[in-house]
């Protein structure tokens, strides 16, 4: 029977952030086109303003407060989506800030750089709202493909190429696997809408194997994005080879996007099937934290070290998934898990971006990201050193720096579930947080307790935009550490809206 086509009514307010981003993209192209060389400075500014402008509708939507759902539920704008969009946009803005001088000083194409960056962000904002297999897939590719290119931005640098290649091949491979999984799940449920999928899967006792394989493959696809062990292998190499701002971007925004997708898929699409994903996530969590930390112990390059640390951090973020199903409904059920995850993402973004920002600032002088390059930093650039100390110990989760609260909510979620598995995981996490301290402290040690490698150490000049980025991150890290209430509210709000 022929389906009658009726144009869907579009809620433009709900779309506003994405629309702004698209406009920005067009502007960027235009700027690049009109004043080629003279426009160098312009494109970064345009990008920055565009991103901030995109935050405005997010806020208006938040104020408005109503959950919106478009395209028969394929695209939802709820608190969860809004909080995450905001996170992506701000993270993106900070990325632009730290990129400005970096890109300007290297002879790279700027217009394209920011174009890619913003389009990747567009993908992320879409991801935050995607509630349908297709839109998730589209969003995923939209945010990934520009990232592949950005990773290899330093064209003549072999490491850059390698980073790009590895990221690309594995990324595509992973998304292919994920697609295969999607095809299976779609086959069982007969719908691409997550809500329908959810019902169908929880019903479909027959064709269990298909469902299992489907779920596993889909989760793998995003486990790759969030660099969960054993799907993390690309991360260190890519992080090291890519331009540092992009590394920061990948380790924060792109990772967050992966988690967003997971939240939607697992907590809506596979809600009924924790028998499949709960054990899987348990294993992934334990592996990710432990392996990430252990390998990080042996790193001598700060970027690489941060890469592994972000792997380990991903482990903490995965923990809520492992136990979400055990949390009694009266304590928020999966909502609590989501809240914990979002809180963690928000805090993590601040401190990790900050850490990378410092790395860049230092690299401006030392031209290296080896730990030895950081020795004696406190001697000649105390401010930077103190900031780095703040960020790394925040990552380590030492009060009163923001990280502690992120860890706390994860522990809380684990104990909230209270099952034996959950508590075991909690202990594993606890031990890991101690191991982690060791390498974070080693960075601090090099900066503060050791003398500079080279005697003549002039001051490090920190350009304004980079300084601004540092300021924002430091402020966030300290404020959220002292008054976690601020962030906790957001995390708590960010519940998936009810779906039609």
């Amino acid at each position: 029977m022929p389906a009658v086509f009726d144009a869907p009514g579009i809620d433009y307010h709900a779309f506003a952030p994405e629309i702004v981003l698209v406009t920005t993209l067009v502007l960027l192209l235009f700027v690049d086109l009109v004043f080629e060389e003279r426009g160098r400075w312009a494109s970064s500014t345009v990008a920055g303003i565009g991103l901030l402008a995109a935050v405005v509708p997010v806020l208006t939507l938040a104020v408005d407060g109503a959950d919106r759902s478009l395209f028969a539920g394929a695209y939802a704008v709820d608190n969860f989506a809004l909080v995450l969009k905001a996170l992506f946009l701000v993270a993106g803005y900070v990325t632009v800030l730290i990129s400005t001088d970096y890109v300007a000083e290297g002879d790279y194409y700027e217009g394209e750089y920011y174009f890619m960056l913003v389009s990747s962000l567009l993908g992320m904002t879409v991801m935050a709202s995607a509630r349908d297999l297709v839109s998730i897939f589209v969003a995923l590719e939209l945010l990934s493909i520009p990232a592949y290119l950005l990773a290899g931005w330093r064209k003549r640098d072999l490491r850059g190429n390698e980073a790009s290649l590895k990221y690309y091949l594995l990324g595509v491979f992973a998304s292919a696997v994920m697609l295969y999984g999607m095809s299976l799940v779609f086959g069982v449920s007969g719908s691409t809408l997550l809500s329908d999928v959810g019902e169908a899967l929880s019903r479909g006792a027959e064709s269990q194997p298909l469902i299992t394989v489907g779920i596993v493959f889909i989760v793998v696809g995003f486990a790759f994005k969030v660099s969960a062990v054993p799907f993390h292998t690309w991360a260190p190499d890519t992080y090291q080879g890519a331009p540092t701002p992009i590394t920061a971007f990948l380790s924060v925004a792109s990772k967050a996007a992966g988690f967003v997708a997971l939240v939607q898929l697992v907590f809506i699409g596979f809600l009924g099937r924790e028998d499949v994903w709960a054990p899987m996530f348990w294993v992934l969590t334990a592996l990710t934290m432990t392996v990430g930390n252990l390998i990080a112990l042996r790193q001598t390059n700060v970027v690489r070290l941060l890469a592994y640390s972000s792997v380990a951090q991903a482990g903490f973020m995965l923990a809520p998934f492992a136990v979400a199903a055990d949390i009694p409904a009266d304590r928020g059920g999966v909502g609590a898990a989501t809240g914990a995850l979002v809180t963690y993402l928000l805090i993590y973004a601040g401190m990790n971006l900050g850490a990378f920002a410092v790395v860049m600032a230092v690299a401006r002088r030392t031209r290296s990201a080896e730990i030895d390059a950081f020795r004696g930093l406190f001697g000649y650039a105390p401010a930077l050193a103190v900031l780095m100390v703040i960020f790394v110990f925040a990552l380590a989760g030492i009060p009163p720096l923001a990280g502690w609260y992120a860890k706390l909510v994860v522990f809380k979620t684990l104990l909230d579930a209270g099952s034996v598995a959950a508590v075991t995981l909690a202990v594993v996490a606890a031990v890991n947080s101690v191991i982690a301290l060791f390498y974070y402290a080693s960075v601090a040690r090099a900066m503060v307790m050791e003398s500079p490698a080279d005697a003549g150490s002039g001051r490090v000049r920190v350009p304004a935009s980079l300084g601004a980025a540092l300021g924002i991150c430091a402020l966030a890290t300290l404020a959220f550490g002292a008054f976690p209430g601020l962030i906790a509210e957001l995390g708590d709000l960010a519940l998936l809206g009810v779906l039609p």
Partner: protein
Amino acid sequence: MLVNQFLILGAVLFCIGVYGVLARRNGVLVLMSIELILNAVNINLVALGSLQGPEAAVAGQVFTLFVVTIAAAEVGVGLAIVLLIYRNRASVDLDEVDLMKG
């Protein structure tokens, strides 16, 4: 009944693709193997969709279209990167690309 055969075909294609991705040394061939996987996906989508009734059939086909389109984009990017590699090291042998490890 009929569906199973499509499924199996898809599975076979998938496995061949995976093998290609993991085994071929030549970057270009790896890209093509990925295409194979995507095609396996497409077959699944269309077949299973039609199994689940008309609505699903449409949805499946639409999904397939998306996959095809995006696959094209991916491959474009992929080729660009491989080309870049070739420029810089005059080879597309993936095993040689291992500056960063550990």
